């Protein structure tokens, strides 16, 4: 009993301290309200999926700097308040709450992954602050059986959109009848793409002859590729991220597997080529844009990103960049500088011209944009094709 009392005393002291430090806890310097627009940046900066979160944030920060350098939005500077979710969905919820209730942001960008984004949406609904994810691709992020989630937005494709496009491309370009699928069992992005691909491919009369999966951060694809090698098929669908895909492609080609390999926008990173090296041949993926695209917007972005980070941008960078601009655009058009105002403006977005394509927001709060097939042909040369 003493112990419980002690515990309670500690609890009370703890609560008091919590109140103390959370009250004054907004470490970021905040200019007086009126001159700035606070926007939350709630991303996976450490932990499992820090790669995606950090990449998104690079794009976001670059876009914010450009906007501020150009005078801000309606003469107001954008103030980003950035937190790290540690790749933990509960922490994502906690921080979204903090951003919306204590930091008084008008919009929260992020997190990068679907699960974490979904975990912040109820909070968004309660506080009427929109959440915009650059890369939460799961179909049910913006819509569920109750209809569209009012405060959820994204700038990336949904999984089924990309998976379907890839399956159609496989049939159209390679006349594929048989396919194997190798997906990443540890993320839902990969599962979503694989599911959509399978459905579309089999509905079109094709057959999935083998399907396997690997776990995140897998290094060794020799075993599964050796297994595939013994099968007959026309294409490999590999809906994963470049971190593993580059290794998988290389090991497949090293083992003498010559069929085309298809993937999704998770392939879009210079790392893919660095990992696969000279073996990056006959590989195609659905993407938002091609670095070959002569659109000055795309080229300027690539040049600026390279100058800043000394490397080519990947899809996460580009999506993060677009998301920031997209949000700033909506804030500029909003009737009032509140979450509700920004939400309306976001939902009404038409023909927003971004690096990752020109898009409008549909009734399900998805960004509707064309798909581009980017690839490396049998000689390893970069090719692209509008879908």
């Amino acid at each position, binding site marked *: 009993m003493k112990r419980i009392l002690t515990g309670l005393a500690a609890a009370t002291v703890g609560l008091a301290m919590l109140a103390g430090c959370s009250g004054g806890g907004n470490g970021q310097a905040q200019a007086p309200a009126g001159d700035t627009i606070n926007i939350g940046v709630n991303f996976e*900066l*450490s932990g*499992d999926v*820090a*790669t995606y*979160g*950090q*990449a998104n944030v690079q794009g976001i920060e670059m876009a914010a700097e450009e906007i501020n350098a150009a005078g801000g939005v309606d003469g107001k500077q954008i103030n980003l308040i950035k937190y790290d979710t540690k790749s933990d969905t509960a922490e994502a919820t906690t921080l979204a709450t903090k951003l919306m209730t204590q930091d008084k942001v008008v919009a929260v960008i992020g997190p990068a992954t679907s699960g974490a984004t979904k975990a912040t949406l109820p909070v968004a609904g309660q506080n009427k602050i929109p959440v915009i994810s650059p890369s939460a691709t799961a179909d049910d992020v913006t819509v569920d059986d109750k209809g569209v989630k009012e405060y959820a937005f994204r700038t990336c494709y949904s999984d089924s959109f990309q998976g379907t496009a890839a399956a159609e491309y496989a049939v159209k370009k390679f006349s594929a009848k048989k396919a194997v699928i190798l997906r990443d*069992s540890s993320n839902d992005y990969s599962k979503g793409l694989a599911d959509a691909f399978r459905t579309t491919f089999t509905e079109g009369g094709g057959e999935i002859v083998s399907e*396997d*999966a*690997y*776990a995140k*951060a*897998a*290094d*060794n694809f*020799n*075993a*599964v590729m*050796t*297994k595939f090698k*013994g099968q007959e098929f026309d294409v490999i669908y590999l809906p994963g991220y*470049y*971190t593993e895909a*580059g*290794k998988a492609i*290389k090991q497949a080609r*090293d*083992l*003498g597997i010559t069929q085309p390999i298809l993937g999704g926008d998770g392939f879009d*990173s210079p*790392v893919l080529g*660095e*990992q696969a*090296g000279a073996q990056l041949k006959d590989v195609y993926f659905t993407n938002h844009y091609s670095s070959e695209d002569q659109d000055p917007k795309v080229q300027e972005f690539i040049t600026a990103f390279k100058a800043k980070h000394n490397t080519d941008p990947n899809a996460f960078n580009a999506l993060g960049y677009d998301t920031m601009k997209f949000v700033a655009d909506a804030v500029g058009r909003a009737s009032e500088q509140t979450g509700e105002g920004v939400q309306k403006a976001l939902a009404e977005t038409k023909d927003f011209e971004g690096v990752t394509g020109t898009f409008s927001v549909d009734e399900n709060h998805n960004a509707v944009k064309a798909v581009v097939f980017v690839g490396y042909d049998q000689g390893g040369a970069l090719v692209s094709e509008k879908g």
Partner: protein
Amino acid sequence: MEQLAQQLVNGLALGSIYALIALGYTMVYGIIQLINFAHGDVYMVGAYVGYFCMVHLKLGFVESLVIAMAVCTVLGVVIERVAYKPLRKSTRIAVLITAIGVSLLLEYTMMFFVGADTRTYGVLPPFMEQSFQFGGVLVSMKQIIIVGISVLLMVVLQYIVRRTKIGKAMRAVSQDADAARLMGISVDNTISFTFAIGSALAGAAGVLVGVYYNAINPLMGLLPGLKAFVAAVFGGIGLIPGALLGGYFIGASETLVAGYWSSLYTDAVVFAILILVLVFKPTGLLGKNVREKV
């Protein structure tokens, strides 16, 4: 049959890497009964040092390997002196938490400087990109290098432990630290030396993995570290031959499960085997039952 042989070749290369990491785990455990969770991250640092040497300093593979081993040696000793030594008299669980702290520190310090994104070793010297066909089984030069270097390092280790004075001191301290101290052995130095050797091996494993898979990131040490520890327990923790056996066994079972069943379940199978081994042979395959004095 060909497929089986191919899977076993793949497993051999993977197993060598697990074995190299497992050796460090097992030696440290043998000498201070610490599950050194930071060990997998020393391996990660080794991979980054190799990356830096090969990509930025344009050094050759062997030079990079040696430098990575040297850096990891120093790192291992520093970790031991700064973080673990003050806790020599504390409970083992406190040291374990410290090890977890060191692990996080290495991971996130590295991430702070290089970012979370994957890095690649880039283009390797042409000789390393060769591969050979042995009756339908494809063996790459890299696999040969990995197995070759691993075996060489293990032979050197065996020589150090069996034949040198410091090796004998290591064995003495792991048997009974107090008795060793009475015999005039510097226990602290011996422990540091053990960390040094174990870390050097982990550093070598890091570079080999970087070359083999051509992809490294700051969190790459977590899972192989865990599996290497499983390997060490599997073979009989504290025993050098046990770590080898465990490393190769896990490498082989992983590739076989992935090849003949599904790579979804490789880790689950590895852990299930581990639990079974523990239930039926608690001290690992090569371990001897130690009787507690009553």
